[in-house]
C-alpha cells in the first residue's frame, strides 16, 4: 500500500466513507466547505445520503435524525457554524446518538477571519451546549491523522453513543499531504436502539426529555459514568523525547506539529525539551501530564487561542509545576523560531527551585 497526496478536507470525507459513514448533512463555510463539496460528490456514489442543509442548525438536527435512523452520520463546519450547532450537540448527547462533527477552526470571535485558529477549544472540549454532557474530541495535526482519527471518531461515537468532534485548525484541512487509507469497512448493522420504521424497532424511542427529577438524575448519572469510562480508556497522545525532558511543550494540531521542530531546535541549543501532543482533547491525557510532572521542571503550552488548552494542563498539574503560555492568533501559526525563543526565555530557567527527581 502506498500513499496519495490529498487535501485534508477531501481526505476526511474519504476516510469517513471507508469507515461506513453513509449520511452527510452540511452547510458551507470557509475553511470547511471542501468537506461538504467532497461529501456532495461521493456520498451518492456509495449509496449514502447527502443534503445541503439550510443552516448549521438544520444540519446538526439532520445528523440527529440520521443517527436515530441508525446510520453513521457526519457534518463539518467552522467556528460560526459550530456555534449554531451547539443546540444539536446537547440534544445528540442527551439522546445518546452517535455522530461525527469536523470543526475546521477559523479565527474568532464573531466573523473573525478564515485563517486558522484554535479558539473553539472551550466551546468543543468543555461543551458549548446546555446540560451536563461532553463531546469526545480528537485533534489531528496532519492529513494522515485526519484520516486515522476520523475513522476512530466513528468507532468512538458508536462505542459511547455520543457526538465525537474532530477538531483541527483550518490549515489542517487546507493542506495537501500524502495519506494512506484503511481498507473499506462494510456499513455496520443499525444498532438495536435505532428507529428504522420496522416492526422490530417500533417500540424504540429516541428522546432527551425526562421531567421526573429522579429519572433525569439517573439519566445524567448514566452519561456521567460513560464519560468516566472514556476518561479511563480513551486518552491518546503523541509523546516525543519526554523520557529525559526537563521542559515539556504541550500543543495540539498544527501548533503541536510546530512544537516537534521546536523540540529538536531547543535540544540543539542544549535545552532538554520534550513534546506532549494530545490526540484526544476530551478525554484529556491528564494522567500522562501528571506522570511527566514527576520528572519535568516546567511546561510550556503553545496554542492558537488566548489560553484555553492551558487550563486543562494546569488542572492536570494541580499547581505542581509552572506552566508558561505562548499564543498566536488571527490566523497566524506559531513558527519554530518563535517557539524556540519562548522556550529559551520563559522555560529554560522556569521551575529551577522545584524538587525534581533525577532522571533515571
Amino acid at each position, binding site marked *: 500500500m502506498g500513499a496519495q497526496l490529498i487535501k485534508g478536507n477531501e481526505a476526511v470525507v474519504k476516510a469517513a466513507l471507508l469507515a461506513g459513514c453513509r449520511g452527510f448533512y452540511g452547510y458551507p463555510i470557509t475553511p470547511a466547505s471542501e468537506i461538504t463539496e467532497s461529501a456532495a460528490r461521493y456520498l451518492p456514489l456509495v449509496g449514502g445520503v447527502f443534503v445541503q442543509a439550510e443552516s448549521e442548525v438544520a444540519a446538526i438536527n439532520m445528523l440527529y435524525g440520521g443517527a436515530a435512523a441508525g446510520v453513521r452520520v457526519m457534518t463539518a463546519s467552522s467556528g460560526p457554524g459550530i456555534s449554531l450547532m451547539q443546540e444539536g450537540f446537547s440534544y445528540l448527547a442527551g439522546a445518546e446518538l452517535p455522530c461525527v462533527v469536523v470543526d475546521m477552526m477559523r479565527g474568532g470571535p464573531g466573523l473573525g*477571519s478564515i485563517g486558522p485558529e484554535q479558539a473553539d477549544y472551550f466551546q468543543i472540549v468543555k461543551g458549548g451546549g446546555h446540560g451536563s454532557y461532553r463531546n469526545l474530541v480528537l485533534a*489531528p495535526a496532519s492529513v494522515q491523522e485526519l484520516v486515522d482519527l476520523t475513522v476512530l471518531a466513528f468507532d468512538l461515537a458508536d462505542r459511547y453513543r455520543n457526538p465525537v468532534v474532530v477538531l483541527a485548525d483550518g490549515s489542517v484541512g*487546507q493542506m495537501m499531504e500524502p495519506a494512506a487509507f484503511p481498507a473499506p469497512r462494510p456499513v455496520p448493522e443499525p444498532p438495536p436502539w435505532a428507529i428504522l420504521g420496522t416492526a422490530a424497532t417500533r417500540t424504540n424511542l429516541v428522546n432527551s426529555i425526562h421531567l421526573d427529577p429522579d429519572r433525569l438524575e439517573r439519566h445524567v448519572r448514566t452519561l456521567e459514568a460513560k464519560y468516566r469510562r472514556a476518561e479511563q480508556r480513551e486518552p491518546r497522545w503523541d509523546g516525543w523525547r519526554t523520557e529525559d525532558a526537563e521542559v515539556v511543550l504541550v500543543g495540539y494540531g498544527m501548533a503541536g506539529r510546530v512544537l516537534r521542530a521546536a523540540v529538536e531546535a531547543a535540544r540543539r541549543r542544549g535545552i532538554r525539551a520534550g513534546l506532549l501532543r494530545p490526540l484526544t482533547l476530551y478525554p484529556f491525557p491528564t494522567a500522562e501530564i501528571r506522570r511527566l510532572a514527576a520528572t519535568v521542571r516546567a511546561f510550556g503550552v503553545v496554542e492558537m487561542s488566548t489560553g484555553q488548552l492551558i487550563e486543562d494542563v494546569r488542572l492536570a498539574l494541580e499547581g505542581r509545576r509552572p506552566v508558561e503560555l505562548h499564543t498566536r492568533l488571527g490566523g497566524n501559526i506559531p513558527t519554530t523560531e518563535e517557539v524556540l525563543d519562548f522556550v529559551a526565555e520563559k522555560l529554560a530557567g522556569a521551575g529551577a527551585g522545584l524538587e525534581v527527581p533525577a532522571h533515571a
Partner: protein
Amino acid sequence: MPDLAVVHGRSPSFYAVFDRKEDGDPGQTHYCPGCGHGILTKLLAEAIDALGIQDRTVLVSPVGCSVFGYEYLDVGNIQAAHGRAPAVATAVKRSRPDSIVISYQGDGDLAAIGTAEIIHAANRGEAITVIFVNNAIYGMTGGQMAPTTLVGERSTTTPWGRDPTVHGYPIRVCELLATLEAPVHIERVGLGSNRQIMAAARAVRRAIDNQVRGLGFSVVEVLSPCPTIWGLDPVEAQTFVRDTMPRTFPLGILRDRTATAVPRPPLPSPPDPAELPGILGLDGATAGTTGGRAGGPRHAGADHRIVAAGFGGQGVQVLGEVLAEAGLSAGYHVAWLPSYGPQMRSGTSNCHVRLCGGAVDSPLVSRPTALVALNQPSLRAFLPRMEPGTLVLFNADAVPPDGLPRGLRIGAVPATAIADRLGSPRAANMVMLGALLEATGMLAPGVVEATLQRMVTDPAWRDLDLAALRAGQRAARRALPATCLHRTAILGAPGPPGPGPRPS
C-alpha cells in the same frame, strides 16, 4: 339478541397504557379537557390504522404540547428540538425511505423558531407528512404570543392584544408554503365542528397516504382549540375555531399536485465495499491495495521550503501541487499549503511547499529556501521575510533595480513571455517550475514530466506544460546568474528523523 360490534373505538396505534408518562394517570393523555391535540392525535392514529402502516411509522415530535406524542402513539418515536422536526424527519426519511415519517408540530415550533426548517424541507420536497397544529398561542409555556396569534388577541406577551403595528400580522403558513413548487399537498382544516373534524380526518389520512404512495411533501394545518389558555370552556373554544379563526386562516386545499407528482426515484443500490477505493479514487492508497507512492529515505537531510506566489489565475497553486506530487514520487516527505488565512495574504495567490528527507514538521513555510514570484507585488510582499542566501526566481525580463535586500540569490526568468511564445501565457507557471528545478536540482526533470503526464489530462495542455517546463530549464541555464545555480547551497538543516506521528 342482536350483536354489538365496535365501529369506533380506541385505536390499536395507541399504547394500551401510557406508561411512558412520567406523571399523572397512565390511562389518560396529558392534554387539557377539550384540547385539539387529543382529537388530532386520534385522527392520526386512525389514519395509521386505515393505511396499515403502524410498523413503518416514525413520529417526530418537537417541543410544545406536541412533545409527548411518544407517550401515546405506538410507533417509532423521535423527540426533537424546538422547531427542528422537519430537519430530523428529512434525515430519517432519506436514511430509511420505506419508513413513513410524520412531523407533528405546533405553531410556535413550526411558524416561529422552525420557520427555516419547514420552508426548506417543503422546498426540497421531502417525502414526509407534516401535521401543523395551529392554536394561535404558545400552550406549553403558558400563553405567550404565537406567530399565528390573531390580531387583537390577548396573550401573556401581548397583554393589550396583538397590535399589527407592533407585533406584525399572523403568519399564514399554508399560503407561504404554497409559493413553493415542490409540495404536493397543502391543506388547512379545523377542529371547530363535526363537519370540520371529519374533513380534518380525511385530510390527515390523505397527507399520510401521499407518503405511502411515494409522493412528495404534504402538510396539513389544523386550526385547533386551546381552551385552557384561551380561557374559554371547551365548547366555546370549539366555536371560536369554527367561526373566528377561519377569518384569518381560510380553510381549504391550497395545493394538490398528487395526481401529477412523480415519486422520488429510489436510491441506487449501494456498491460492494470492495469497490470503494476505486470509487473514491484511492486505488493504491488503501490498506490491502497496491500501488500509490510513499516517501522514502532517498533524500536524508533535505529540507526544501518553497513559496510560490503570483496573481490569482497564474497557476501558482498548480505549480505547488505539481511540485508536491513529483516530490512524493521522488521519495520526499511532502506538504502543500495553499493561500489560506491572513499570514499568507498579500493580495496574491500563493502556496507553501515542503519537500523533506524526514517528516514535515510544519507545512507552513516561515523561512523559505526558495521564492518563486510570478509578479512584482508578490515579490515585494515576500521579500521582507527572505533571509540571505534564499533563492528568488522572478517572472520578468530583469530583476528590479531597487529595494532588494542584500544577499539574495535572485534571478529573472521571463516566464510569461516564454510561455506566450509557446502558445499561452498561462503556462508561465510551468516555465517557472522548470527554472526552479534547474536552479535547485531538487527533482529530476523526468519525475516532474511523469507527474505532468499523470495530472494533466488534456493532451494540448499537457504538451504545452511539458514544453514550458523544458523551456524554463533552458532559460534558467541561459539567463540566471551563477549564484542562483549553486544547487547544494539551498539545502537547509535536516528535519526531524523518522516517520510522522500516528495516533495510537
